[in-house]
């Protein structure tokens, strides 16, 4: 009995030490390999990690790329994780989230032959092999706010938000509030950020839900949930409230949060999937654009609520979107100030 256990352990140890090396063909110039490093969190987060990964997967399908991801557990591993792709001959590395900006810039300097796509990473200076995929979230937020401002009956609308440590969240919030005021100056706005740190602000659905409930009890009849799973909690809670609408964020959350179908009128989208794909395509075409690459934003389809949204609201939204793009109205969001 005892001998056999010792034997098993010895064998196990030997096997472990001997190690198995993995064959990677990414070093070959003919093979296109795209790697993705997530911000802290999972690739299936129903939010920006997931959207970026879907963009990479689309490149895998349509461009025949070998695609792989690494989920980051500790923010201090960003460089390590990028390095794993870089040293295994990956051609394009996608890094998701503003927090990876510094690690991405450093890796780009160390590996000039690899192209980097930094989602949500504003580029202060243009580097040939880094494309910062950024979005005017304030514009999407402005449209969502205008929609909320026109749809509300009670005159009170709410926003349940992740944290103001993340610039895109602030942009969504400011845009939302200003958009609502633009169509309805007297509107009552109640917004809250999650009171915790970065590690919990986007992963606390119960806080999102209870906060949405508190807002609904205060008379809010449109709830904007903008904060990963925290926001999703707010959407699901709103779905259980009679006559209250909710607006999702980042992607068309009709697809990602089916529990919220009974309230989800639209989502303030940033189109990460096509943005990432276009940049990989540009790499293939040899026209990779260094510097900032501004992706599209907009409102998601109304789905089941299409009949509930009056035509004049739709027209007004189209009008506002045109004015925003032309620069005739401003979202009022100014990150510098």
């Amino acid at each position: 009995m005892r001998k056999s256990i010792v034997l098993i352990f010895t064998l196990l140890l030997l096997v472990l030490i001997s190690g198995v090396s993995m064959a990677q063909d990414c070093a070959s110039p003919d093979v296109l390999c795209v790697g993705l490093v997530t911000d802290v969190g999972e690739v299936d987060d129903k939010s920006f990690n997931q959207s970026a990964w879907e963009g990479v997967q689309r490149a895998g399908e349509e461009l025949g790329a070998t695609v792989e991801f690494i989920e980051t557990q500790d923010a201090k591993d960003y460089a390590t994780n990028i390095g794993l792709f870089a040293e295994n001959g990956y051609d394009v590395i996608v890094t998701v989230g503003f927090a990876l900006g510094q690690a991405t810039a450093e890796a780009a300097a160390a590996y000039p032959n690899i192209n980097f796509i930094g989602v949500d990473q504003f580029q202060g200076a243009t580097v040939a092999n880094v494309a910062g995929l950024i979005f005017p979230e304030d514009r999407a937020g402005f449209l969502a706010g205008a929609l909320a401002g026109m749809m509300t009956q009670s005159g009170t609308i709410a926003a349940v938000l992740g944290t103001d440590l993340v610039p895109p969240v602030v942009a969504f919030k400011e845009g939302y509030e200003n958009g609502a005021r633009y169509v309805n100056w007297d509107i009552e706005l109640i917004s809250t950020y999650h009171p915790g740190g970065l590690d919990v602000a986007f992963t606390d659905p119960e806080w999102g839900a209870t906060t949405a409930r508190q807002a609904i009890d205060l008379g809010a009849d449109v709830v904007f949930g903008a904060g990963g799973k925290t926001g999703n909690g707010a959407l699901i809670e709103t779905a259980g409230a009679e006559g209250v609408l909710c607006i999702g964020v980042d992607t068309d959350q009709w697809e990602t949060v089916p529990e919220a179908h009974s309230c989800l009128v639209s989502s303030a989208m940033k189109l990460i999937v096509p943005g990432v794909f276009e940049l990989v395509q540009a790499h293939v075409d040899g026209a990779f654009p260094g510097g900032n690459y501004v992706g599209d934003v907009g409102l998601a389809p109304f789905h089941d609520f299409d009949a509930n949204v009056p035509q004049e609201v739709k027209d007004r939204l189209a009008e506002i979107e045109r004015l925003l793009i032309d620069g005739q109205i401003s979202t009022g969001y100014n990150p510098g100030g």
Partner: protein
Amino acid sequence: MSTLATTSKSSWRELLRYSGWIIAGLVVVASIIGYLSNAQVTTSMLASTLRQSTPLILGALCGLLCERTGVVNIGIEGQMLFSAFIGFLANVYTGNLVIAVAAAILAGMLVGGLHAFMAVYLKMDQIIAGTVINILALGLTGFFYTAGLTTEGKLQPINLGPLADLPLVGPVLFNNPPITYMAIILVFVMHYVLFFTQWGLRTRAVGEHPSAADTVGINVNRMRYINVIIAGGIAGLAGGFLTLEAVGSFERAMTNGRGFVALAVMIFGKWTPFGAWGAALLFGFASALQTQLQFIGTIEIPHQFIGMLPYVLTIVVLAGLVGRSRPPAAVGKPYETD
């Protein structure tokens, strides 16, 4: 039987002392609300208070029963997380919320059993046992969770007829989903069981003076096993609250420290059910208040400072009013029969 009588009396005294605090707390709450002076605000804040206190009081009752029987439990967080996950899975695969709640409770009891096995049978240090449970739950639920699982629904409020039509207390107290009601009932049940039944007397005897309990024929380790497993079921209910009643879906690490706050609530309440309930309500109220203050938005204070409110308030009340708390004497010590 004379001991039973005296402890009952002293527990009443304890209750009276706490009711004093509860009244004092209510005065504070009322004055703040008076300041905000709005029926809608009052209702929404009190409803939020009760809701945010529910997982905390359930977690605290779990810890309380464990410690009263002499077993430290810092694994409440893990117990809640694991049972939240199992309850969620049961809901996904059966679509039956009753079965799902039962599954969450059973999962909690299972983890409680593991805790009892480590603490009582293996005589492992109980802080370590709790830590093992916390890390294990985080790892297992994260490892086996696959995204994209969705459920049909969650537990809905049960309207208690005419009671729910009462002004203010109606919507706050009598129109809640089932686990919230259960939590309130459990506070009273726990108080009754601990201080007015033979089982409670034995439980406390085992927690305070196990060798004396042994001498009068109480099976110390058996008492501990059973109590820790039952307590696990209560933590399981807290987990079920999160996935089956409050959110309706599971996320990795979604307990977000609530199990640790529950631990603090238990100590705050001096290891008594009503004390813990008062502490949980205080914490829930402070959380609701911070949300309300952000809603108002006119106060130019960075939201991080408003967000600290529940924690600062807890420390101030603890240091200023509650003071020293004494746990059961034999807590943390495995019972050795020589």
